[in-house]
């Protein structure tokens, strides 16, 4: 009986010792946490540079149209950051707070924007504001903007060129006036 008992016990102990490292060196448990990042829409825009000034007066020759001189003939720069879903695009719209005096028209044209991402495409030829412009009407000058950042350097972003010209269609209504200030507002809008 004693010999049988010894025979039974030793193999069982040996088996447990052999299995122990294999079983308990493995995975004991797993657990999970969640990480969620919500990147929300961003629409930020600014315009850099100086105010644009024009004077109208004089003629190159008798009977010719008056000359329009730009005293600050340098572009301003639109700098913007846009974050949108991949299914959406934006545009840059400009609006004036008043119409241009009769006999004149103001052309506003964006150049090719710099920057990272979908900075958009300028509207060819830009837009014109004349004497019939209804205040606060949006006029689109850049389209197809997706998620982007134009940069903030002095000449980064979209250059905007301003040209004041004689509007021959309404020239007969041109009057001598005092200085008129028109404020332009640029906005990132959905498109």
């Amino acid at each position, binding site marked *: *009986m004693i010999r*049988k*008992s010894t025979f*039974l*016990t030793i193999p*069982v*102990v040996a088996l*447990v*010792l052999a299995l*122990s490292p294999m079983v*308990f*060196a*493995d*995975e*004991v*448990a*797993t*657990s*999970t*946490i*969640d*990480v*969620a*990042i*919500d*990147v*929300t*829409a*961003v*629409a*930020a*825009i*600014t315009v850099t540079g100086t105010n644009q000034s024009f004077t109208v007066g004089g003629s190159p020759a008798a009977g010719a149209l008056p000359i329009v001189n730009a005293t600050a003939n340098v572009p301003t720069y639109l*700098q*913007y*950051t*846009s*974050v*949108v*879903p*991949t299914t*959406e695009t934006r545009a840059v719209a400009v609006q004036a707070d008043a119409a241009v005096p009769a006999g004149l028209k103001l052309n506003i044209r964006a150049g090719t924007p710099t*920057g*990272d*991402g979908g900075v958009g495409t300028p509207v060819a030829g830009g837009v014109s504001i004349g004497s019939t412009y209804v205040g606060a009407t949006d006029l689109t000058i850049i389209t197809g903007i*997706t*998620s*982007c*950042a*134009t*940069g*903030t350097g002095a000449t*980064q*972003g979209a250059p905007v060129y301003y040209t004041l010209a004689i509007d021959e269609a309404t020239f007969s209504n041109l009057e001598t006036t005092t200085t008129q200030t028109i404020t332009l507002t640029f906005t990132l809008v959905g498109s």
Partner: protein
Amino acid sequence: MRILARPSCIALLALLAASPGHALSFTVSGGWSLTVGTSDLAGPAGSGLEPQYQSAANAVLVDISGALLDTEPWTVTIHRVDVSWDGSLSLSMARTSEGLGAGSISGGLTLQPLTLTAQTLFQGTGNRSSIQLQLELDGVSVSIGSRILAAQVVFTLLDT
């Protein structure tokens, strides 16, 4: 023979009871919910988004329990499971506290990028509670677009 076989069974049970880690377990709590928006611009309009964000130092808490001995060793590994992720982002994790308890803890004090395969974050012995972990997100840019990104961090406790 049946009577004499009982000491064998008792010996087996004793070995199982004394075997390290038989009841080792852990709990992981917390997480990280981050919102990135206009206030995270790196500068004025035209600038990009700040690329790097950190959670609170105690965003995740780990408790390891059930060790019968203070010397009972264990290892915690981590890996990432993408739910809706962007490959340009890097998610990292680091241990920010020693936790409490009679055991020991080491490793994990420097940020470790979370990959899709398990990697050791830290290891230790015995029972430790309130081990604090911090997450860091890097690589955020406007090119990600407006969307919700989600991932899971899977913790695995190994009895080593």
